């Protein structure tokens, strides 16, 4: 489907790509609309006015320069996480461990950030980002290797590795890498050196620019390279991949490594761009929102950007909504969960809209279970 879109020149019907793009958007858009509608009902039931709440929500996310800045800030790690999960999906892998990979990336970027002093920014930033990304990749490689060589399901192993990552980073931030400055009693690392902080470029945070570049790079990798073809073939039909001479094991490890690299990079960007240090508990749930985003974007790397922005707007506007309408900001989590529900169980939306199942490459959420 998507390949067909990218090769329009020889297609008889020039509008076909546009139509298929619109068709692909129906379910995600409908899922968001339905989720917002259900959210409105819940808000009304809690005694508030949904219109007031939603207008405050979008005002808080888009209403001013500062609001937009906050939205971009929230959306940046979501893009990395969404790309990480999407890339793994392309190879038929469900990476639930983006959270853990992101934490590893975040704490190691912080470590490079605070432990090296006096390095120029052009060296310090790339080094910290790279180390963070590589640590994310290493963390994911564990699950990838287990899957490839023992068949251990990546959903199980990545969930387990998430717990290990939570506790490992907690311990590092409260032990060897703890901020020992006078007065600090909480578990956190020292602040990173100013040279390691991500600057704004022409008013846009560098992290956001990197996120967009990463999305383009992932798109290119998936659709324009032989590696992407191998990844997708393994994801679509592993036995045909084997027949075609593709090593399923190698691609499984590679896909997890690339996925973990992106998640780790997301954690590093968040640390160096927003927080400035590592604090346990920062952005808990980001790895799971990444799954929502990947599914909302139907694992299309470019579509991950608008999907992340949408969730970013909600997160940025949540406190304004709570302030203006008295609706608890947790309602945003409820809406996100409903979106996830509908995009994951898209046959419900298809049934509501009386749509036929779509042709083309599929996202498999449960391959390998029970076999």
């Amino acid at each position: 489907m998507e390949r067909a879109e990218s090769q329009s020149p020889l297609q008889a019907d020039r509008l076909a790509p546009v139509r298929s793009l619109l068709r692909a958007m129906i379910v995600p858009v409908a899922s968001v609309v339905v989720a917002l509608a259900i959210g409105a009902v819940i808000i009304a039931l809690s005694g508030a006015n949904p219109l007031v709440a939603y207008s405050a929500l979008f005002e808080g996310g888009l209403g001013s320069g500062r609001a937009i800045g906050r939205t971009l800030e929230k959306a940046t790690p979501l893009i990395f996480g969404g790309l990480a999960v999407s890339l793994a999906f392309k190879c038929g892998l469900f990476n639930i461990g983006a959270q853990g990979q992101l934490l590893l990336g975040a704490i190691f970027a912080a470590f490079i950030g605070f432990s090296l002093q006096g390095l120029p920014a052009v060296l310090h930033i790339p080094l910290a980002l790279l180390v963070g990304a590589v640590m994310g990749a290493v963390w994911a490689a564990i699950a990838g290797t287990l899957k490839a060589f023992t068949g251990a399901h990546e959903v199980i192993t990545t969930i387990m590795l998430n717990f290990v990552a939570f506790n490992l980073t907690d311990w590092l931030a409260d032990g060897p890498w703890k901020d020992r400055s006078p007065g600090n009693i909480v578990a956190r690392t020292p602040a990173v050196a100013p040279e390691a902080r991500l600057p704004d470029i022409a008013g846009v945070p560098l992290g956001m620019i990197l996120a967009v570049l990463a999305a383009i790079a992932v798109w290119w990798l998936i659709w324009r390279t032989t590696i992407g073809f191998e990844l997708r073939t393994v994801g679509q039909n592993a036995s045909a991949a084997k027949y075609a001479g593709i090593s399923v094991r190698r691609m499984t490890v590679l896909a997890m490594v690339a996925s973990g690299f992106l998640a780790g990079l997301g954690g590093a960007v968040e640390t160096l761009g927003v927080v400035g240090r590592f604090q346990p508990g920062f952005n808990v749930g980001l790895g799971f929102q990444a799954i929502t985003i990947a599914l909302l974007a139907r694992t299309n790397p470019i579509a991950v950007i608008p999907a992340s922005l949408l969730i970013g707007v909600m997160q940025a506007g949540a406190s304004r909504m709570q302030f203006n309408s008295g609706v608890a900001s947790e309602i945003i989590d409820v809406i996100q969960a409903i979106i996830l529900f509908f995009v994951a169980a898209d046959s419900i939306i298809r049934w509501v809209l009386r749509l036929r199942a779509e042709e083309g490459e599929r996202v498999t959420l449960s391959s390998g279970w029970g076999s």
Partner: protein
Amino acid sequence: MTAEPEIVLEARNITKRFPGVVANENVSLKLHRGEVLALLGENGAGKTTLMNILYGLYHQDSGEVLIRGEPVRISSPSESIKRGIGMVHQHFMLVPVFTVAENIILGAETGNGPFLDLKVARQRIRELSRQYHLDVDPDAYVKDLSVGQQQRVEIIKALYRNADILILDEPTAVLTPQETEELFAIIRSLTARGASVIFISHKLKEALAIADRIMVLRRGRVVGETTPREATERSLAEMMVGRSVMLEVEKGEAHPGAPVLTLENVTVLDDRGQQVVNGVSLEVHAGEILGIAGVQGNGQTELVEAITGLRPVHSGRVRINGRDVTNASPRRISETGCAHVPEDRQEDGLVLTYTVADNLVLNTYYTPPFAHGIVRDDRAILDHANRLIERYDVRTPGALTLVSALSGGNKQKVIIARELSREVRLLIAAQPTRGIDVGSIEFIHQQIIAERDRGAAVLLVSAELDEIMALSDRIAVMYHGRIVATLPAASATREELGLLMAGAQPVNAASELATDGHEPVNVQRRGV
């Protein structure tokens, strides 16, 4: 037939549409008491849809079904069973670890409260078995039965439920020629006692041999009705395809050259760790077609997988062009010039969610001109696709159509085009024409012979004895994981091959080779 016997089953103007296809259009059918009606048609002609409507799995959009003159609406298989319709599916629905009796009563259990009472059931099964010469022991475990015997269990299952209308869906696909003869005898004894049989097939010979009447379906419509007396294989084939077809394969003499594929004492294990290929040695020479005949499930599948690197070789040696490729990767084997048309084209040969163009480079995508370094050249892939679609006459709306939208025959042409467009020194074709239309079969046979004449070595594996006999220069018979005999195709007869396929000792002097120690005739074959 002067006095018209009672009509037991009638379909009137059945139409069934699926999104984008009309599977049945105005199909009418009459089945008389005591007759065998053969329903002939290519894959996708609508035979199975029609039967599924009669059996209650689908409901027609329009038209009606009458049983013994009474209009009925059959909404489920259990209802059709109640009305006396029994169906024997192509794939048996039996529990291997249950006995015959347990399988037969499954869903119709007799007994006291929660306790099973098999005594009555066993008694009835013995009676039925005797009455129809079915020769089935109610206490045998299904897993120990041959495929032919399992099929008889399915037939008894229907009779046990008092079915007097039997639908047999491609019943001979898994049988040896001798087992087919036995099945025909059973069908005759059923009809002699008043049962009626619908026999679904795409094999012309069988329809002519067993049917009282033959109905031909094409593209969802009834295109003709005839009797074996009036019809010939040629006339039936024309009806099925809609044009005249060549039934005989034209091929010149083979000019065998040096050995290309050499197997030495190859053994292979199946997924459960059972040794299913037991020391196969053979040579395939350049410029010849070696056909492997055998009933499905005798190790052919695993042998091909082992040669092509998809399954480990347990012991023994595989050489291609003198190079040892035992347990080499599929890619290395493919790069020796080994083309592989896999048995399961949907599962192994194609990625159904990919375009035709992508499928045409499925195993060459990384080589120039399709890729430069790691960057794909979509233009080159598309040009290549358009060229092959033209040359191999693949019927597709375009190179960017998803391959899942193509018919079985055209899917197979995509695979053939991909495999033969490389430089081929060894072609391994497993079931190359299974389930595809006669027109495509003709084309694919010509391509295989052309490849031989170009000097490639061809290893052909097929469950269709006719195909083996028509294409091969030499025929190796595989039974229980062994090559029990290798014969020159020119002198091999159906009967002889059939006996060998069933495990008989080779007796013909024409046998070049017979490995020692293979099992005697009466050993039961393992299930498929």
